[in-house]
Structures are given as structure tokens and as C-alpha cells.
């Protein structure tokens, strides 16, 4: 094995920022010296234990259950053993964007979340079917009311446009045929129980409401029926389009920018060769040279969730210590509440004055909490150069820019010159948390 293939500390830190939410120094050191493929295998090893589910407490209101699930998930990201699994669950949540706002039943959202967590690294078609027939999606994109003779096109369109082949790769006739194919795949809806009409959200195949006629999709005429369109999209004639669409989207989420044509070809071919398994695609992305290129480091803006989780890891703060949930909406990313069916964007999507204010506000409102804690303790007793190193190290920034380092040193020297040593520890926290390096993955 060539020594150059053994990853350095900075490369390990990069991998942990992308394949998770940023690693501690100990976690990074554990990867140093492994080859790229060994390190990638390590972050992809999720063990064999069945993942936990968001907790459910029927005594809580819907709203409280939603908050509890948000907090559970964010805690799982920050403290769970498999950050890449949670990051991929977050990716699939944005991909199959479904909002509690509309579904209005956190139990159904939790069911979908569990599908994403347990099936996300397997056959994409199987996950896509499970999500599509899950009540959360049936309600969110209205297929619950899609019946023969009164087709509802919402789900049919998004299945192609957003979940598989992407815009421009299907016709309006395909949408009409797809809607017909999905007729009858509904929820049970209102049922009479002991004289009361109650809504039963569970999936049902209403054969009588299904349009069993021949339909033409992508020029293929047959009696298309719901899930078998997904087989065609993922494993059949549309496979190449689906593989490219998902591969490019995941590259933008885990790596950076738009992939080169050569990269896109390689990673989508690896996806296809694996039988469209998520794990193979993640692995292919993490093994690309472009992923490891030094120019890729600190090149992706952390989404609000990634940012908060990274801060939780640095500080050890829990959702019980800090009402983190109240800060997520101003920052623009509420778990289980994506803005619309297109989910969240990446990178420059998160650049805005209001999100900058929201992050600043969180940091400055809680900066005083670190006084009398070990975090950055004694930073005021260090020289400006040592203090800067201490701050970057605390925030796991292994390669600060010269500009940031010089600015922090000057700031520390100035605070000492003005006899404001008392302010250095709490304000160092603000510098570290808001510096550009810590905003980036």
C-alpha cells in the first residue's frame, strides 16, 4: 500500500465533517494512517443492531410529539454511534420531503423516518416503494385521494420529477399515465367505528378504485400499477436517468459543487453496478479523488441542522440544556418540516442575512453559559497565538485560514491591551462558533 494513500489528520477531519457532523480530535486521530478505503469502510460500518426509532408518547399533543421527534433525531445525530447513517437519513428526508405541517401526525412521520434510516443504504427501489406507500407520503402528496376517474397527479409528477429521473425527462402524458397507474393506492380514510367517523391513515389498495387499463409510460404500454412503475424507474428502462439524478444530488450534499462528467459517470455506474444500493453510491462518492482534494475542504456551507449538531458536539450541550428547537425555524431548517416537496437545497442555499442573524443570535444568547465550564477555560491566560490555536482546536477546525488566525490573534491582543481579560472566554466562543471555518463542512 502506498504511504500516500494513508490519510492524514486533516483528511480524516474532512471525512468526518462530510460523512457526519464533524468529528472530535479523538475520532479524527483514530482514522489517521488508514487507507482511504479503510477509513470509508469504517464510517460506513453501521453495525448490526437495529436502529432506534423516535419515541412515541400518546400522552403528548401532536405538536409536542413533533418537537420530541425533532429533539430525539438531533440528539441521535450529535451523540449516536453512526453519524453517517443519520446524515444519510437527513439526505433522504430532504429527498422524499414530507412535512408534518401537512401530514399532521408525527407517528406517520416517525414511520417514514424509520424507513429512511433502515432502508437508505439498501436498494433504492425498495425504499422508494416503502416511502410511496407509507401514509405520510400518501397524505403529503395526495395519493390518498387518487382514484380512477378522478386522478390526482401530485404524487405521480413528483415521483418522476423529484424522486427519480428529474425534470425534463418525462412528458405530461407520462404524468397522466403515472397518475392512473397509482390510482387505488390510498389510505383507508374515514371509516365508521362504533358509529363514529374516524380517519384511518393506513395504506390500502382499493382495487375497485384502480384504473386497470393499459397505460403508456415512456413508450411502454402495459397495465402499469403503482409500485411496478418504481421498478421500471429504478431497475428498468429509466435506470440510467435515475442513477444520474440521485448521484448528482448526493454528490452535492456530501462532496461539493457540481460533479465533473467523469465523476458523475463513475459514481452513477457504481450505483447501477451495485443494484442501485445507497451504500455503494455513498462509498463511490467518498472514494473519489475530487472528494479528497484539498480545495474541497471547508467548501460546503453547513445546513442549520449540521451546524447545530456540530455545536452540540463541541459544547456537549443537550436539547435539555438548551431549547435548540426554538432556533431551528429562524435558521430555516425544521426537521420533519421541509419547506416544500423539493426539500432543502445545499451550500449557497444557506447563505442569507437572516440565517446569519439567526446563527449569531443563538451563539450570542448562549455564550455566557460557558463561563465556569471547562470549555475554553483559561484562554485568557494564553498568548494571542496560543489562544487562537486553542479556539480552533476547541471547534475542531484543523486548518484555519491565515486570515482568521491573524484576526483572532489581533482581537485577543486588543482585549488584553484594554484590560478586558474577563471577556475573552465567552467571546472566544462567539469567534469560534461564527468564524467562517466552523460554518463550513
Amino acid at each position: 500500500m502506498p504511504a500516500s494513500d494513508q490519510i492524514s489528520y486533516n483528511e480524516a477531519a474532512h471525512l468526518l465533517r462530510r460523512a457526519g457532523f464533524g468529528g472530535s480530535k479523538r475520532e479524527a486521530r483514530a482514522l489517521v494512517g488508514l487507507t482511504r478505503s479503510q477509513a470509508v469502510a469504517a464510517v460506513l460500518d453501521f453495525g448490526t443492531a437495529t436502529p432506534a426509532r423516535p419515541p412515541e408518547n400518546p400522552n403528548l399533543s401532536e405538536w409536542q410529539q413533533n418537537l420530541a421527534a425533532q429533539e430525539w433525531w438531533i440528539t441521535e445525530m450529535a451523540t449516536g454511534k453512526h453519524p453517517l447513517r443519520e446524515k444519510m437519513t437527513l439526505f433522504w428526508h430532504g429527498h422524499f420531503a414530507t412535512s408534518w405541517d401537512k401530514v399532521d401526525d408525527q407517528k406517520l412521520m416517525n414511520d417514514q423516518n424509520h424507513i429512511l434510516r433502515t432502508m437508505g443504504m439498501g436498494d433504492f427501489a425498495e425504499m422508494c416503494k416503502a416511502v410511496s406507500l407509507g401514509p405520510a407520503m400518501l397524505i403529503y402528496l395526495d395519493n390518498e385521494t387518487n382514484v380512477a376517474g378522478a386522478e390526482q397527479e401530485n404524487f405521480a409528477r413528483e415521483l418522476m420529477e423529484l424522486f427519480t429521473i428529474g425534470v425534463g425527462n418525462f412528458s405530461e402524458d407520462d404524468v397522466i399515465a403515472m397518475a392512473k397507474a397509482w390510482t387505488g393506492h390510498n389510505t383507508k380514510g374515514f371509516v365508521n367505528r362504533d358509529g363514529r367517523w374516524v380517519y384511518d391513515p393506513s395504506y390500502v389498495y382499493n382495487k375497485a378504485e384502480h384504473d386497470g387499463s393499459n397505460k403508456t409510460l415512456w413508450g411502454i404500454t402495459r397495465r402499469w400499477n403503482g409500485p411496478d412503475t418504481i421498478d421500471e424507474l429504478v431497475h428498468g428502462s429509466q435506470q440510467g436517468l435515475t442513477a444520474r439524478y440521485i448521484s448528482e444530488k448526493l454528490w452535492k450534499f456530501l462532496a461539493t459543487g457540481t460533479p465533473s462528467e467523469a465523476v458523475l459517470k463513475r459514481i452513477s455506474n457504481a450505483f447501477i453496478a451495485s443494484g442501485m444500493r445507497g451504500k455503494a453510491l455513498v462509498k463511490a462518492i467518498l472514494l473519489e479523488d475530487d472528494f479528497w482534494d484539498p480545495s474541497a475542504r471547508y467548501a460546503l456551507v453547513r445546513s442549520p441542522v449540521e451546524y447545530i449538531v456540530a455545536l452540540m458536539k463541541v459544547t456537549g450541550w443537550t436539547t435539555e440544556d438548551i431549547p435548540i428547537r426554538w432556533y431551528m425555524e429562524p435558521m430555516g431548517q425544521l426537521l420533519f418540516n421541509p419547506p416544500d416537496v423539493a426539500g432543502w437545497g445545499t451550500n449557497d442555499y444557506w447563505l442569507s442575512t437572516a440565517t446569519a442573524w439567526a446563527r449569531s443570535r443563538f451563539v450570542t444568547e448562549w455564550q455566557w453559559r460557558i463561563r465556569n465550564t471547562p470549555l475554553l477555560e483559561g484562554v485568557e491566560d494564553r498568548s494571542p497565538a496560543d489562544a487562537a490555536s486553542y479556539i480552533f482546536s476547541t471547534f475542531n477546525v484543523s486548518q484555519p485560514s491565515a486570515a482568521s488566525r491573524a484576526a483572532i490573534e489581533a482581537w485577543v491582543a486588543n482585549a488584553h491591551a484594554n484590560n478586558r481579560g474577563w471577556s475573552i472566554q465567552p467571546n472566544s466562543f462567539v469567534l469560534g462558533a461564527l468564524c467562517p471555518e466552523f460554518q463550513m463542512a
Partner: protein
Amino acid sequence: MSRNEPELDDILRSLTVPSIGTSAIARRRFLQGSLALGSASALGPTLFADEAAALGADDRILVCIYMAGGNDGLNTIAPLDSGTYFDARKTLALDATSSHKIANNRYLHPSLSTLADRYRNGEVAIVEGVGFPDDDHSHFSSIKTWMSASSQHGPGSSGWLGRYAEDAGLGALGSVNVGDRGVPLLMAGRNSVATGLPTDGNLFGAEVEEAWEHDLVNFFSSLAKQGGQASPMANAWAEQLGTAIDVASNVSPIYDQNQEERGLVRNMGLAANLINLDVGARVISTEFRTFDTHDDQAADHAARLKEFDDAVNRFYRNLRAKFQDRVVIMTYSEFGRRVAANDSRGTDHGTAGPMMMIGPAVKAGFHGSLPSLRNLDDRGDLKHTVDFREVYATVLQQWLRADASQVLGGSFQTLDLFGSPGDVTTSPINPGTVTSLDGLTRAGAAPKARSPLSTTEVVQQVRPKLASGF
């Protein structure tokens, strides 16, 4: 569990732009690739200073108020001389003696007392019967239609004022949403988003008093100017925080007054203060809720309209005289309510409704025409007489002096809603445009109101989620 229509608040939240408050110019320059590594030094706060241009001689300002939830137009500007109205509205019908008669068969809701005065001063134009074809009665899709004014949907969809702001090259403070819930689709352009100003201030970079606070804020301002960060995107982040700090210090005076006020009154006070700063604000949006009055409507609706009346008052009390005839306030809502009241002393989702344009520069009076209260569609709703895009085209062309067809992606008829700025119209009421409502009066032999529940509606009540979508 029982299923209900999704909560309006939740729907509106899901229609806000997550990338709340992007500095339009920073985003645009970034997309153009001019933020190459190390080149950001020329941007940042100095850039903002260029943007904070005072209002030019020909510039006009539009303030949009979204009445969220579907305002009951028929009880806002009520045809109280119509027997059909009373038959349909039953106990919800307004009382003519406490309402404000402003024209033949047109009465403003009792809560709108100062608006009535403004009307009589020639400062209110009312466009009646505004809607669009095939309204599906869903908050979700209807407001998306109103905000986007575009047939394009799905990822990357934009709002008509967002597109306008982009085409006009408005800077960070040119296009602003006042509110705490993110920027609505209305204000999202193709590649940029309006600045989102929270209502409580407390912005990082504002109200900096102590020396240590100055040093902290200056730290990030200087990083923004320097560039040299670890990646172009890291430079862009540094610049974004620098812009936020700069905007914060520029706008912080708007939070100094009327701090005890809440809701739309506060938001409109802030909007006026922002205009007074003269830092280039040209399009401002805000919203208040909720007009989704399915049950026991009377008290709620009266309270909302009182809040609206107070808010317009607050706005003009704060607004400096030199801006008074440069501003028009426009209201809109996703739909009106059904003509017939329901069995819960409320009204269900309807279709067409009135839009109000307020300001000395408007051609006051009634425009468009009130749809017939008898010739309804098969759900029992009004048939719109004016397409909402005709109003937008008019505002874009006659008020904002923009290319309406470029913003709206098509040509639409315009109405005659504006005089020249400064040309205060005082006797504009045009009774000729007031529809006579089939000549019916309260004393007349009113026909029986149609059954309040059509078959479609019954189906909707059983499966309330029929009408929605993206």
C-alpha cells in the same frame, strides 16, 4: 384521530423560503462567480453602502399586506343594500347603521372607520371581484398561485415581487419582508431572496454599545472585508455575516419606536420607519393572520379588520410627509369566503375577493366589478371578474414602472389605478363602476338563497384533503 385541514400556520410556514433573507446582491454576485478565492475584499459592507441609495425622483414604493387565511371580502366591503346578501349571510350580515357607507350599496366593515375617512379623502382604490380561474379552494395552492403569479411550480419557483426586485436590481434593503417567519414565496426571486427583517430587532450588529461588543462585531466586519478564507464559499459566508452586520446597524433605528405594539400594527410601523431611513426600500411585504374564519366569524373578523385599520394608521402616522405620496399599500388574500354562511356562524373557503390599494397616489373609488351574488359557480362561490394578474400588471407598469410582461411571463390587461405621484385625487369616487347587484335591495323580493352545501362541498367535508397540491 380525526383529520383536519392542515393548519393555516403550517401551510404558510411551508410556503416560506427557507433561505430566509438572502442579501440579493451577494447571492447574485456569488452566482455570477465573481467571488473567486481572495477576490471578496472589494465586496462586503462597502457593497452595501452602494446599495443604500436614497429614493430617486421617479422611484415608488409598494407595501404589500397579505391577509392570511382567506379574507371575507363580502364582509369587508359589504353590499348592504342587497337582499341576496342578507339571505346568504343570515346572522353574519353586517349592520348597516354601524357600517360605513362609502358608495351606493358599498359599506366598509364597522372596524374600518379610519379607512372610511381615507376613502372619502380619495386615498383608497378598491378592486372588486379579483380571483383566478379554477381556484381549488386550497390555502396551499391558492396562495402559491397568488404569490408566484406563474404557472411554473416545483423547485426553484419564485414570487412575482421577487422577480421584480431582481429585474430592477434592488439591493439588500430594496426588497424586505417584515416578519418572524421567513420570507414568503412572494419575495423570492429566481436567484435571490428579499432580506427578512425580524420584528423584535435584536440583530447581531445592532445596538452595539460596550467597547467589547464593538470589538466583537468589528472582528466579523473586518473578516468580511479581508477575504482570504479557506474556500470561496467560506469567503461568501464571511461576507454574508458582514452584510448582516451592516444592514443591522443601518436598520436598527427602525426598532426604536412603538415597541409595545404587536402584530400588523408593529410590522407596519417598522415598514414606515424603514422607508423613513431612505436606504432604498422599494418593495416591502408583511402578513397577518388569520382570516380563516370557519366558525364564529363575527368577532374574529372584526378584530382582524380593526388591527388592519390601526396598522394603516400607524403606518401613515410614522411615515414622513415627503414619502406619503410615493407609497401605495396593497392588500391581498388567497381567496374570499363562500357567499352563504355555514352552520357554524362562519364562512368556508370561497373564490374572488376585493383588493385594496391605499395611498394618496391611487385613483380612489371602485374598480373591476363585484361578481353577482346570485349567479354563482357550482360550489356557491363568486365568479371572479378581474384576474389578479391584471392588478399585478397594473401595479408593475403604472406604479413601479416595470416591464410587467417580463415579470409575469405574459401580457395582461391593466386597470386605471394610479394618478401621478403628488397628484392627490380628491373627488375620484366613480359610482358608475359600482355594480348594482341585479337591482336587488333589502326591500325587494329576494330570491331564496341557494343551498349552502353543494355535493362537492359535502365530499370536501368528508375528505377535507381533496383540495391541495403544489
